[in-house]
C-alpha cells in the first residue's frame, strides 16, 4: 500500500534524523540567571532541536575549581560563554579558542562606592571588592593607567562585603550585582557610582567561544548553534514574562536563591548591553578590529600578554 509505505519511510527518516542529531554541551559563564535567558529560550522553544542539535546547557558550580576555559579546552563542553578579555589572554597563552558570536556590545562594569566618587582617581587607596573568579586583568589595567594603589578584596558572592561595610567599594556588573545591591539596600545615589565606559574603559564583554579544533570539524553545528541562540534571544526579548518564568524555574531547580524582580531587571539591563552602539540595533555584530586592538594594546601594556593574537585568529 503506497500510504503505509510513505508513513514507514517518514518514520524511518525521523528516527535516522534523531539519531543523527549532533550532541553539543554549552556552558554559560555563571549559574542560572537571566543573563542567559536567550539560550534557555532557544532550548525551551526547540530552536536548537529545529537546527538538528541536541544541546545540553551545563552550568558551572559557584564553588567550582575548574574554570570554564579549562572545561572548554579539555573538551568537557563544546561551546562556552566567555569575556573577550580573558579569551584574548587565553589565546595569547596558546589556547586555540575562537569567538563565534559576540553577545554584548558594551561594557556593564561599574564600581559602587560607599562614599561619593566621580572618577577612577577617587578610588585611590580604597579597599574594593572584586570577583575571585576573574576579571582581575581589568583591575590591573585600571590601576596602571590611573597610577592607583587599590586594596583588592576577592569575593565569591556578590554584594555582602559591601552591605556589611567590609569594603569601601565594590566592582559590579550593572545587570547583576548592581541590581542585587539595589534590592538589598535600596536606590544607590548616582554620585557613588563610576561607570568605567564613561572613562574610556569600553570593552565588549560576553561572547560564545569554541576551540579551533572543534570549529574546524563542526563549523556547521556551531553556526547552527549561533543561529538558534540568536533566535532564542529574540524570543526572550519579545516574551519577557515567559523568559522570566523559565529563568526562575531553572534557578529553583539549581537551588539558586534569587527573586523575580532581580532576574527581570537583569534581563532588561543585559538586553540593553546587546545594542550595537554603531547601528543602534541588536545585531550581535562581531567585535570590531579597533575595539579588539584596544583590548590587546591594554593587555600588552600591562604585561598580561606577550604575544599578540591577531584579530582574525580570534574573531570569526
Amino acid at each position: 500500500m503506497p500510504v503505509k509505505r510513505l508513513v514507514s519511510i517518514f518514520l524511518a527518516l525521523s528516527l535516522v534524523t534523531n539519531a543523527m542529531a549532533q550532541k553539543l554541551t554549552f556552558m554559560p559563564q555563571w549559574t542560572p540567571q537571566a543573563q542567559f535567558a536567550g539560550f534557555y529560550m532557544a532550548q525551551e522553544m526547540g530552536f536548537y532541536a529545529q537546527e538538528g542539535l541536541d544541546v545540553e546547557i551545563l552550568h558551572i558550580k559557584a564553588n567550582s575549581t575548574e574554570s570554564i576555559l579549562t572545561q572548554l579546552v579539555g573538551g568537557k563542553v563544546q561551546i562556552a560563554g566567555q569575556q573577550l578579555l580573558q579569551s584574548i589572554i587565553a589565546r595569547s597563552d596558546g589556547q586555540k579558542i575562537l569567538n563565534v558570536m559576540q553577545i554584548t556590545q558594551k561594557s556593564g562594569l561599574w564600581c559602587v562606592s560607599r562614599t561619593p566618587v566621580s572618577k577612577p582617581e577617587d578610588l585611590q587607596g580604597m579597599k574594593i571588592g572584586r570577583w575571585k573568579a576573574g576579571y582581575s586583568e581589568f583591575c590591573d589595567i585600571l590601576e596602571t593607567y590611573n597610577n592607583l594603589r587599590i586594596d583588592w578584596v576577592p569575593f565569591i558572592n556578590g554584594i555582602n562585603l559591601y552591605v556589611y561595610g567590609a569594603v569601601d567599594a565594590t566592582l559590579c556588573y550593572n545587570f547583576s550585582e548592581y541590581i542585587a545591591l539595589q534590592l538589598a539596600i535600596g536606590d544607590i545615589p548616582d554620585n557613588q557610582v563610576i561607570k568605567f565606559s564613561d572613562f574610556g574603559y569600553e570593552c565588549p564583554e560576553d561572547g560564545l567561544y569554541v576551540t579551533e579544533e572543534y570549529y574546524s570539524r563542526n563549523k556547521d553545528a556551531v553556526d547552527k548553534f549561533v543561529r538558534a541562540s540568536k533566535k532564542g534571544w529574540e524570543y526572550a526579548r519579545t516574551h519577557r514574562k515567559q523568559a522570566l518564568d523559565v529563568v526562575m524555574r531553572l534557578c529553583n531547580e539549581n537551588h539558586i536563591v534569587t527573586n523575580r524582580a532581580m532576574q527581570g531587571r537583569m534581563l532588561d539591563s543585559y538586553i540593553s548591553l546587546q545594542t550595537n552602539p554603531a547601528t543602534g540595533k541588536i545585531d550581535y555584530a562581531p567585535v570590531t578590529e579597533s575595539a579588539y586592538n584596544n583590548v590587546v594594546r591594554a593587555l600588552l601594556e600591562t604585561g598580561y600578554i606577550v604575544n599578540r593574537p591577531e584579530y582574525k585568529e580570534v574573531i570569526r
Partner: protein
Amino acid sequence: MKRQKSFSTRLSLNVLFVTSVLFLLAIGVASVSAHLLIADEAENSAGNLLDATIAKIEKSLMEIETAVQVTAWIADENKDSKAYLYELTKAVVEKTDKIQGCAIAFAPYYFEGEYYFSPYSSRNQQTGEIQTIQLGNPSYDYFYMDWFQIPSLSGNPCWSEPYFDEGGGRFYMTTYSYPVKDSEGKVIAIVTADVSVEWIADILESVRPYTSSHVSLVSRSGAYINIDSGSSIIGETVYSTLAYVDDDDDDIDSLVMSMMSGTKGMRKYSRGSNLSFAVFGPLANGWILSISCDYREVLARTSKMQVILIFIALIGLLLIFISCYVIIRKLTNPLVKFSESARQIAKGEFNTELPEIKSEDEIKQLRDAFDDMQHSLNEYIENLKKTMATNERYSSELNVASRIQMAMLPKNFPQQENFDLCALLKPAKEVGGDLYDFLQKGDKLYFTVGDVSGKGVPASMFMAVTRASFHFLVNMGIELDELAGTLNNAVCEGNDTGMFVTMFIGCVDLKTGEFRYCNAGHNPVVVNGEFLDVKPNIALGLFPGFKFRMQTGRLEPGAHVILYTDGVTEAERSDKQQFGDAALLEWARSHSGLATQKEACCNLLDAVHTFTEGNEQNDDITIMTLKIK
C-alpha cells in the same frame, strides 16, 4: 388627592427625625473617638510588642553569641591541639540545641604547610548524628565565604545573611561568626555557629497581634529571615517585593526606606483602600523587625460596637416614635372632639356640648376659649336677629316713604292738541332727591325739573317741600324770577343741614309760543337738539335774598324740549366713562320725531341703561320731554 398624615403622626415623625439626627451625631462622635483611641492604643501596643520581641530574640541570640565567644576563647587557648579543636566543635553542637553546626576556621597557612584548617561539626537534622570534618578544600574555599571574610575584614563578629542549608536537613540557617585575634589584633581564626532560624519564625508567629498582621525579620540586605523552606519569599528582599507593587506607591516606598535606615519608628501606609501601620526597629546585630497591622482588623471591635450601638439606637428610635405617637394621640384626642363640636356649631347648633377636659393645660384653655366663643356667638346671633328685625322695619318704612314721594309727583300727563309732555323719575335708592312737576294755568304751561343735594329720606323731604312751594308760588301768578327768589328764601329758611336744590323752571305760552325760563344752577335744557342758552344763577337754598334772573325765548310749534338731571349725563359704565352731553345731544337730534313723549322718555332711559351696560345706578335719573305741536 394625597391624604394628609395625622397631626400625631407628623409630630412623631418630626421628633423621630430630630432624634435620629442626634443619635447619628452621638454615634458618629462616639465611633470616631473610639476609633482614634483604639488605633492609638493598637499603635502603642504594637510598639511595646516590637520592643518585647526584639528583646526576646536578642536574648536567644545572645545565648549563642556567648557560647561562640566562650568557644573562641577555649579554642584560642588550645589552638596547639588540633584534635582538641575537633572535639571542641563537636562538644559545642552536642551541648547546645540551637547550634546546628560549629566551625573553628583558621586563616590560610596559620598552621605551617596547611592552607586550609577548619574543624567543623554539624548535626544531621534527620538522624541527629553529629559529624565532624575538616571543612576547607579547593571546592569549598572558605576564606571567601561571607561568614569568614566579613568578620576577618572588619574584625567584628557578625550574623550572616540567612541561607538555605542544602547539605543537612534543608533548613533556613544563619551563621554567627566571631573573630579570634592574636596579640597584635590580627584575625587568626573565625569561630562560627550555624543556627536554624525556625525558632525565630516560631517566636514571630507567636507574637502576631492580629490575624492579618505581618511580623517580619529581615537581614541587613533586606532578606527575610523568618521563612520556612516552602515559602515563596525565599530569595526575595523587602526591595524586591516592593518591585511587585505599584510604582506610584510612595507610602510603601517610604515605609521600606524608613525601616531599612535602621532606626526605630512607626509609619502608616495604604495598600489600595486598606490603611495599615507598621512599627519597626533594629536588633543589635543589624537585623530589622517589623510588625504591620491592618487598621480594619484593629478597628473591627469598634465596628462590632458600632453595629450594636446602631441596633440599640434603632430600638430606641422605635420606642420614642411609639411613645410619642401614643402621648400625642392622647393629648390631641380632645382636639378631634373639638373639631366635631366646631362642625356642629358651624351648622348652627350653638348649644352643642363641648368635651370635658380634666387637665389644667393648654387644651383646657382651648376648651374655655371654645366655651367663650360659643357664648359670644349666641349673643351675637341674638343681637343680629334684633338688628335684622329693626332693619326690616326701616326698610319697610323707606318703601312707604318712596311710595309717598313718588305719589307726590304727577303721574297723569295731559295729551293735548297743542303740546305733549311726559316725565319719569328713577331713584338710585329707595327714596331720591330729584323732582319734576308741571302745571297748566290758562294758556300757560309751567314745568320744572330739580335735583336736591344728597340722597335718601332727607333729600326726599327737601324735595317735597320744594315741590309744594313751587305749586303754591305758580298759583300766585308771579313772574318766574320772583318765583325763584321766593322759593329760594323759603327753602333757605330753617335749612340747617345746608341742603340745596338746583331747578330749571320754565313757562310757555301755548298760544303765542313765548317761552320764559329761569335756571337755578341746574343743567341746561335741550331745545331742538341744542343746549338752551341759560344765565348762571345759583342753586336754591344757598343764599337767601338772591336775585334770580329770568330769560325769555320762543318755542315754535314742533319745538322739542328735554329737561333732565345730572343722573342722565353722569351715568357711568364700569370703566368710569360717562354718558355725557354729546350723547344726550346726539340722542335729542335723532329721536325728536318719536310718536309720544312717553315713548321718548322711555327711549332716553333705555339709551342710558344701554350705555351703562348694567352698571349700578349711583344717582337719581329724571327725564322730562315736551313737544310743542
